[in-house]
């Protein structure tokens, strides 16, 4: 295989950037529902990315992955979480430690840090685009900011889901030859997170009537 066509790396860079921007949008979304919708949109972008990579790099496995991604991450997981929230009829606004502006500022700093770190490694590859790896590391780091700074179960869940999207982007573009099994196994993790999320909603929310993690401090020390 020769060098990658520039339209290909242009398209993948554009799509990964879109994933990163959605991550920022999640950070500022005040309503938990809009966070979940943004996650569904982000997953849709990842699906498109999978199809683009499958078509231009001739990896037919990735079509299957795109299909599973769409069903699971665009439809099933957001649908289930929204349903659980509707049942619980809970407070719809998330809670955060900092104001929106400071959160975005931190997220920008963190993603610049991720970008610079990867770039200073001076990884050169004739066949695979390095900027995408840097962007996906930035996505992962911003997901951590989301998890740390917003203190409710839904934001934590969405933070983890979107971190999974970030790692997915990296594996799609940088390591398309990685066995399909790896990506599928990670999708299972999402489902289990949703199941445990359901248990939390039932057991925990039933008692405290809030989704804030402030009450989850029984276990310490």
């Amino acid at each position, binding site marked *: *295989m020769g060098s990658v066509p520039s339209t290909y790396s242009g398209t993948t860079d554009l799509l990964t950037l879109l994933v990163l921007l959605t991550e920022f949008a999640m950070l500022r979304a005040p309503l938990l529902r809009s966070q979940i919708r943004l996650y569904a949109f982000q997953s849709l972008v990842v699906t498109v990315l999978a199809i683009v990579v499958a078509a231009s*790099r001739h990896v037919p496995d990735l079509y299957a992955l795109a299909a599973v991604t769409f069903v699971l991450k665009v439809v099933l997981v957001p649908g289930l979480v929204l349903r659980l929230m509707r049942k619980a009829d809970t407070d719809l606004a998330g809670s955060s430690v900092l104001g929106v502006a400071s959160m975005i500022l931190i997220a920008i700093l963190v993603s610049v840090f991720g970008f610079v770190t990867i770039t200073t*490694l*001076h*990884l*050169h*590859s004739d*066949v*695979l685009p390095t900027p995408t*790896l840097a962007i996906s*590391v930035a996505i*992962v780091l911003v997901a*951590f900011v989301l*998890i740390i700074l917003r203190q409710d*179960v839904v934001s*934590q*869940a969405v933070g*983890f889901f979107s*971190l*999974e999207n*970030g*790692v997915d982007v*990296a*594996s799609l573009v*940088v*390591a*398309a*030859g*990685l*066995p399909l*099994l*790896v990506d599928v*196994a*990670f999708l*299972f*993790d999402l489902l*289990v*997170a949703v*199941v*445990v*999320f359901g*248990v*939390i909603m039932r*057991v*925990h929310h039933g*008692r405290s009537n809030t989704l804030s993690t402030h009450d*989850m401090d*029984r*276990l310490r*020390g």
Partner: protein
Amino acid sequence: MTASSVLVAIVIVPFVVSVATFFLPVRMSKPLTVVTGIAIFALSAALVPRVLRAPIRVGGTLQADALSVVFLVATAFLYATTAIFAAGYLHLEAGRSGARYGRLFYSGINLFCWAMVVAPVVNGIALLWVAIEITTVVSALLVAIDDTEAASEAAWKYVLLASLGLGIALLATIVMYYAGTATFGPAYNLSYAKLLAGAHHFPPAAVRLAFVLAVLGFGTKMGLVPVHTWLPDAHSEAPTPVSALLSAALLAICFYAILRFYQITERAVGSTYPRDVLLVFGVASLLLAALYLLRQRDVKRLLAYSSVEHMGILAIGMSFGVQLATIGVLLHVLSHAAAKGTAFFGSGSIVRKFGTKDMRRIRGGVGVLPWSGPLMVAAILALSAMPPFGIFRSEFLIVSGGLSDPHDAGAAILVVLVTIAFFGLSWFTSQTMLSPDPRPGGAPDQVVGAPDQVVGAPDQVVVTRGEPSVWIVVAMVIGLGALLVLGVHLPSQLSQLLDQAARELGGPR
């Protein structure tokens, strides 16, 4: 049986049993799981002499070298003993909910053990990641199985942190893959043989990044400080057989994953860098765990912090980079598995008897529990590295290895912190197990207040002298027996296995 068919059996049988136990009633699942556990242990032990001759490969997916078999034997041992322990520990409510709990429990335990025995025998870092991912998926559900508020809180922290850790570990795998593309082209398989053969051509910066990400990611599941925070919660709230498996087997498997990255990194950039990384994480873990051990009130949390301590010892032992210390580390994996398993079985017996995990309400354990009480004391002493048990021998090897370099302060730090941990553990032993019998004159039975959330426990627990179950005692006796064997006289094949595994880790010298 040929070596390959043994390996294939190890990979297939527990999965089939897991599916079967989902449909079978509990009275059949119990013996089936015990028999499977013992069979898998026997098969794993049968691999020891064969793997000493040459690594075993089955197709492109399965492979076992000496390093794999060390971890396989440790896990299979826990599979067998935990199955025996669970047969005595599990008390199910009558009716449908009890039957459902039993089916989910046994199916989950077998699936969990399946994923853990598969992890060391798959070929390549991608499949290894998949196996460890499956352990998370299954064990998170097992932690939540009791359906209490505390259990759901613990399960949430576990699933979130472990998944985030595995996300980082997957990133490590991807970066390592990326590092290899310069040598192997854009599509290749990540088998160990291939990675090790090509490692010295990999770009060093990428390999270093991959190693740090791997230590951080798999370290989250292994319980390295500062990414250990899920561990005490999950260990204390899970059903005790699950705690035993988490603590004694799963943490070691995640250490195995780090060792595989260590092997590749060592060939690519030399051993100084990965050793330094492990030293930092190891000292942090040992320090924090030793201090937390001094202030625990919950038996199972105490044992959980003891696991963090021992994982710290493993990391520090690897950081010495001496053959002797590496052999010690691998022996420590085996002896920690036996000791921690036994201690958790003992805690299960205590929880069943006293109806609480709170150490302030547990008194006179040795008097109340005629067999498992003294066995528990022995297990705790074994965990604090008392001779003649296996951990004494392994820590001795690690420290001797560390002292061989007089400028290295690691061994001194290790000795000091292990001593602090010893105080924490002996405080527990003297307060709860060796304290006077709560029943004055040995007569009327003491009534302890409402127990913590123990499934199926009555509101008031009357403490009478006697064992909750003979199966618990059997499991503990087997565990301590193994610790004695490891400590007093290592079988020659096992010792050869450890030598060979240490050589594999150290690279061709």
